[in-house]
């Protein structure tokens, strides 16, 4: 050993130690780039979330109604009147400008603004929204007497109440102190009656229809072989028919009662109109509400949105069937994809002989994750619906033919299609989780005399559950948000009934269903009045995102708990 190597390292020269650090360190630019990349990504996500949350929450907040007096010298008027009332949607720079207006705007140095107003009363005016130039407005007031009425058709009516008119008898004028309590009581009454009608028509008459349908199928099955049984069934049909007629008559009477009272109201700037009280869902005086009352309306609107069925081409009412459909479909999909993916991954990782073939399969599985989802939709339609569903129909439901039961899109096939689409995610995640189980654990189990399957079952699978759940979360998030394939295999704009209900056999996997993602598409782009549907689009989007976040959070909590439980010995 030479002495030189034992020399202590010479201290650096003083000057070098004191020299200022170079301003640019090699590679710093790239660090900066990565942080910019992250910042841009975060900004976009935050912006998207902000827009959705802002618009989505605002939908439920009851808006004030303003009355605008238009300038008499302005050429602008709305259907021959100079007074308009409605809630403000937007106040922004004018979008549509002609050449002269642009020149004028340039001369003045600012672009003119305009109001977008929701005027309601679509039955009277044929449109819900109007644009008013800023320049045409003389004064804006908030009359306390303006009433906003939510109706079962034509959106809101906005006007001043005039009187309540019974079918025969004296009207109650709006100025009468008895007016307000009477209106409240009557609206409660018509809403209760509407529920009753719905119950009669949907549940009871629906029940009778289902029974009659079943009997008709029985008769078809029996054919001419047993005329006495056919006759007996005919008799049952006759009693059912009688029951039906009674129910239908009751419903008709209730319906007629809905028109018992009418409300007269005056449109802003002129004529009087009437509507039967049966039309009213709810009403409020927007400019009389206190903050607390508005919060109450907010809660009520939210509740309606979450728990009720849609009305008016889905632009009003709630979206409960879509929430329920999405939930049930995602659940079914998870039930299908979990065992399928996990078993496939176990075989691939534990039993298959690693070689060219397994590698090829693995590559194919990974590529499957990149196939456009609509392709899965087409496959689902061709295979699940027509081939499998057709076979089920001809075997078990041949009496129903030519009406398909499973041979048409339904929630089962939608779940199966999405399961197929997301199975690669689960396979890849499970394989990774399995291969991350420490080798020592495997050997210990085998050394105890456990068979390979016992080792997988007792040691490997429990330890890899957190990883498998991660895969399931990803699969669920993708499945819950997917729309394109569903349009081919069973999603509809409006489903008459839910996939679970009280009619035997309770779970109806053959039924078509509603889905939040499709609902967004349908509202935003297929709706006759897309402007009126816009708030619902935001609210539905917010809900879908929240649903996915809740699903993810729940799975993350479960995963962390399991991870604590199964964390491998650290040492």
């Amino acid at each position: 050993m030479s002495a030189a190597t034992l020399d202590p390292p010479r201290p650096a020269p003083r000057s070098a130690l004191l020299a200022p650090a170079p301003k640019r360190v090699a590679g710093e630019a790239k660090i900066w780039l990565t942080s910019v990349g992250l910042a841009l990504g975060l900004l976009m996500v935050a912006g998207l979330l902000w827009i959705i949350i802002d618009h989505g929450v605002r939908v439920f907040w009851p808006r004030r109604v303003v009355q605008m007096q238009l300038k008499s010298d302005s050429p602008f008027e709305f259907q021959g009147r100079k007074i308009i009332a409605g809630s403000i949607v937007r106040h922004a720079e004018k979008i549509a400008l002609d050449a002269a207006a642009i020149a004028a705007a340039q001369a003045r140095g600012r672009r003119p603004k305009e109001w977008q107003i929701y005027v309601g009363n679509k039955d009277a005016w044929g449109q819900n929204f109007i644009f008013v130039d800023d320049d045409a407005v003389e004064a804006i007031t908030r009359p306390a007497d303006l009433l906003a009425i939510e109706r079962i058709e034509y959106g809101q009516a906005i006007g001043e109440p005039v009187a309540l008119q019974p079918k025969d008898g004296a009207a109650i004028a709006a100025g009468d102190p008895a007016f307000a309590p009477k209106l409240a009581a009557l609206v409660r009454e018509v809403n209760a009656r509407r529920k009753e009608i719905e119950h009669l028509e949907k549940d009871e008459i629906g029940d009778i229809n289902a029974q009659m349908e079943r009997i008709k199928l029985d008769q078809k099955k029996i054919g001419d072989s047993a005329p006495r049984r056919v006759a007996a069934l005919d008799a049952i049909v006759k009693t059912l028919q009688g029951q039906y007629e009674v129910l239908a008559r009751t419903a008709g009477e209730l319906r007629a009662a809905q028109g018992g009272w009418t409300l007269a109201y005056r449109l802003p700037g002129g004529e009087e109109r009437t509507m039967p009280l049966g039309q009213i869902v709810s009403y409020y005086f927007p400019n009389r509400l206190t903050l607390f009352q508005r919060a109450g309306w907010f809660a009520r609107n939210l509740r309606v949105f979450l728990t009720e069925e849609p009305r008016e081409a889905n632009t009003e009412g709630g979206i409960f069937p879509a929430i329920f459909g999405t939930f049930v479909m995602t659940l079914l999909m998870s039930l299908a994809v979990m065992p399928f993916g996990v078993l496939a991954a176990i075989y691939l990782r534990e039993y298959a002989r690693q070689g060219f073939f397994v590698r090829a399969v693995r590559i194919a599985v990974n590529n499957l994750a990149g196939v456009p989802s609509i392709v899965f939709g087409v496959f689902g339609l061709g295979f699940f619906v027509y081939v499998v569903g057709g076979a089920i129909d001809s075997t078990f439901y041949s009496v129903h033919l030519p009406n398909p039961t499973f041979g048409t899109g339904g929630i089962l096939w939608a779940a199966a299609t999405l399961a197929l689409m997301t199975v690669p995610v689960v396979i890849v995640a499970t394989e990774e989780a399995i291969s991350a189980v420490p080798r020592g654990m495997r050997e210990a189990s085998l050394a105890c005399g456990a068979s390979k399957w016992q080792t997988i079952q007792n040691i490997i699978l429990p330890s890899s559950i957190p990883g498998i759940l991660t895969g399931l979360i990803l699969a669920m998030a993708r499945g819950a948000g997917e729309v394109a394939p569903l349009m081919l295999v069973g999603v509809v704009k409006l489903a008459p009934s839910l996939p679970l209900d009280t009619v035997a056999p309770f779970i109806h996997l053959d039924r078509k269903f509603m889905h939040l993602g499709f609902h967004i598409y349908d509202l935003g782009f297929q709706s006759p009045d897309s402007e009126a549907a816009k708030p619902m689009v935001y609210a539905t989007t917010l809900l879908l995102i929240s649903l996915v976040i809740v699903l993810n959070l729940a799975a993350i909590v479960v995963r962390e708990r399991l991870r604590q439980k199964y964390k491998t010995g650290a040492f």
Partner: protein
Amino acid sequence: MPPAVPRTNVPAMRQTLPQNESAREGDSAANSRYIHIRDFSFFYGPKQALHNVDLEIPEKRVTAFIGPSGCGKSTLLRSLNRMNDLVDHVRHTGDIVVNGSSIFHPDIEVIGLRKRIGMVFQKSNPFPKSVYENVIYSLRVAGQNDRRTLDETAEHALRASALWDEVKDRLQESALGLSGGQQQRLCIARAIANNPEILLMDEPCSALDPIATGRVEELIHRLKENYTIVIVTHNMQQAGRCSDHTAFFYLGKLIEYARTEQIFTNPRQKQTEDYITGRFG
């Protein structure tokens, strides 16, 4: 030959290794060729890890395998319970005979074999289950569900591995909460719960502190009354302290095999002497 001792927990074993059920009581009857390794060579792909090893391991004794890293001692140990079956692209020549039967015989069921030959690993590897479930794991996978048998076996194994007093109040708690030394003793308890004939230990103390090591060595000393123990160790003192016989391996070859006192005081081979005196390895 004394009559076979009835063995309750492992019925499969009797079918697989019928003859020579064993001479388990009485030191005098101990079989000096209990494990007979005959001309055994082992290959990882093209690489030969063991060269024609011939070795006879006596019953109810502690036999230590020593040697520098990569000398093949662990490979040989893992061949004894066919743990090397799990590795791809391996093959062997020669034979290993345990108690009169070849462990590579086609009629031998490897699961039954592993029940007879327990193993303790270098890194303690308790399952992420309760202490109790860890100990009785081998019984569970053998289909034993009788609560009393399980309880008795658990207590017996934990007492035998000198862990009972420390864990008797926390049997249902996770085994991962035990200390490193306790975990390793738990692994030993798990191995002996199955009532094996042979206990293989692959550097059982390499990750333990001196106190824990002392307890495990004490345990080995007590266990040899009932079990044939083969231990791989890097620690010369340990081999000297707790083994009866020592085999020295170097580069896949068995260099010397003798009584431990002889290896450590008067080795016949120069390489052995160099190794145990610390000149290399």
